[in-house]
């Protein structure tokens, strides 16, 4: 079988966000493989290592720099990579068209991607790909196993969690708790340089953005930053309760 994992290049969550000319400025910043996607890639590798005959294909959509995360994916163990190179910012519904195009062309059985994107905070990609493929999907998965032609696992739902089973082909979105992604070793980083990294043009997938981003801004909420003296905890408690009642007016 063949597994397609989407890898996105995003600003490291530990980095602060900078805005330049009404847009987030990524120039010279630390960019990483989105950790939510990393769980999907790791899971694909584990399915392969569990004995199933699996080819793992990693795909990325974005500017030339996205090659870095594909190299990371190859170094972690993906068999080959596809880069749809574009400087156009595509919304998630447009991206799903490209991904579904790749999934169809490569005749994959399973698509894995992160449950939420660390840059655009979108959770829609997995379901949108599934709809285009007319496949079922499960989102926010934190346990997953392949039993023959069936996937079984556990995921988060509105009020709690649920265990599930579904037939392949399918789309699964992944999250923290699913596994501990491996670090690429130096020999594997060297080996990855020889693996196939194909470049596709965006035009061949016929995807155009439907959502236009007008502006990005950082709105910092002014905080009171009152540091209460806690030498006497009872006095501090009395002061806090007074502030909550009479300044913030949030408790009776």
């Amino acid at each position, binding site marked *: 079988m063949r597994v397609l994992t989407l890898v996105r290049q995003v600003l490291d*969550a*530990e980095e602060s*966000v900078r805005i330049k000319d009404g847009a*987030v400025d990524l120039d010279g910043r630390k960019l990483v493989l989105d950790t939510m996607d990393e769980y999907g890639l790791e899971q694909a590798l584990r399915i392969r290592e569990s004995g199933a005959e699996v080819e793992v294909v990693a795909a990325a959509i974005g500017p030339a720099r996205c090659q870095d995360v594909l190299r990371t994916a190859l170094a972690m163990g993906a068999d080959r990579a596809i880069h749809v190179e574009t400087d156009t910012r595509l*919304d998630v*519904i447009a991206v*799903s068209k490209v991904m579904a195009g790749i999934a169809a062309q490569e005749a994959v059985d399973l698509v894995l991607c992160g*449950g*939420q994107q*660390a*840059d*655009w*905070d979108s*959770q*829609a990609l997995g*379901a*949108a790909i*599934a*709809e285009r493929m007319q496949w*079922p*999907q499960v*989102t*926010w998965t934190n346990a997953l196993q392949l039993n023959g032609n069936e996937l*079984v696992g556990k995921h*988060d*739902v*509105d*009020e*709690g*969690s*649920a*265990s*599930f*089973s*579904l037939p392949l082909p399918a789309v699964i979105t992944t999250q*923290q708790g699913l596994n501990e992604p491996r670090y690429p070793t130096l020999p594997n980083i060297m080996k990855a340089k020889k693996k196939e990294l194909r470049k596709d043009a965006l035009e061949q997938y016929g995807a155009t953005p*439907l*959502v*236009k*981003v*007008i502006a*990005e*801004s*950082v709105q910092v*909420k002014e*905080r*009171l*930053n009152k*540091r*209460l003296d*806690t030498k006497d*905890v*009872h006095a*501090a408690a009395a002061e*806090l*309760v007074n502030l*909550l009642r009479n300044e*913030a007016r*949030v*408790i009776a």
Partner: protein
Amino acid sequence: MILLVVEHFGGRVSKSSYELVTCARQLGREGPIAGLVLGSSVAAVAGEIAFAVDQVLVADRPELAEYDSEIWAAAVAQIAREGEASTVLIGASRSGRDYSPRVAVKLDAPLLEDVISANGVGDRITAERYTYLARVTEKVEAQGTVVVTVKPGAFAATAPGRVAAEQFDVDLELPPRRVRVTGKTSEKSARVPLSEADVVVSGGRGVGSAENFTKLVEGLADEVGGAVGATRAIVDAGWRPYAEQVGQTGKTVQPKAYIAIGISGAVQHLSGMSKSKYIVAINKDAEAPIFKIADYALVGDVNQIVPAILEELRK
């Protein structure tokens, strides 16, 4: 028509549905506001939402007893098409964000996810939403028919009126269920739901133990009539149920007051609560990132400070 999908739980309309009504009314798009109720034995839900919308569309069928992404998407897209909806409004709950992308693809419409505002001018609609783990506000624009998921708590809830709108039963062509639910852990607490609470008292690793959490965090939540929240670390440790988790992989809350006890403030946690009106932080580490966004900061031992607060509140 503006179509909104009514969220309900335990036979009652969820607060988020009344927030969708507010969003629909402020949208500036023409046409009646239709509330679509999907479920099994949902007469009470339909009767309740009738006091807040212009018409109620009801699909009351046994196959709709349990949520399914494909079934929900098929139902909503069919009704949107038949009613020529200009806008489809869906609550940005776990399930709402799970099936809404399918609706957008079916309708070949743009998807605006988890919005905090939405304004229509002519055929265009602009909306704001948070990105970069809720650190950035993004303004986006789309046109024509749009599918929108609305962030819980971003709009005030509409109060029901006195006149009940007419109800219509709808026929649906539903696909078969392919994802089988083989087990479920429901974690409904007796307290006010996290996303609806005015005060959230939340605990992290600094609380020390599950027993201490009960004493300090639950104790304070009950004293102020608030909801209980928790960080990823302690949910993973098994101290608390997932339903209480606040942050990137849990719930997003914006209460009037968020009281963080023993929480250092990882960016993933902050993304779920940084929009709270007032933030109280109690932590022994004076350098903890949570203090940067705190209105009231208490540096010290939670085991001394929280009992003192409880004592003060009981005076």
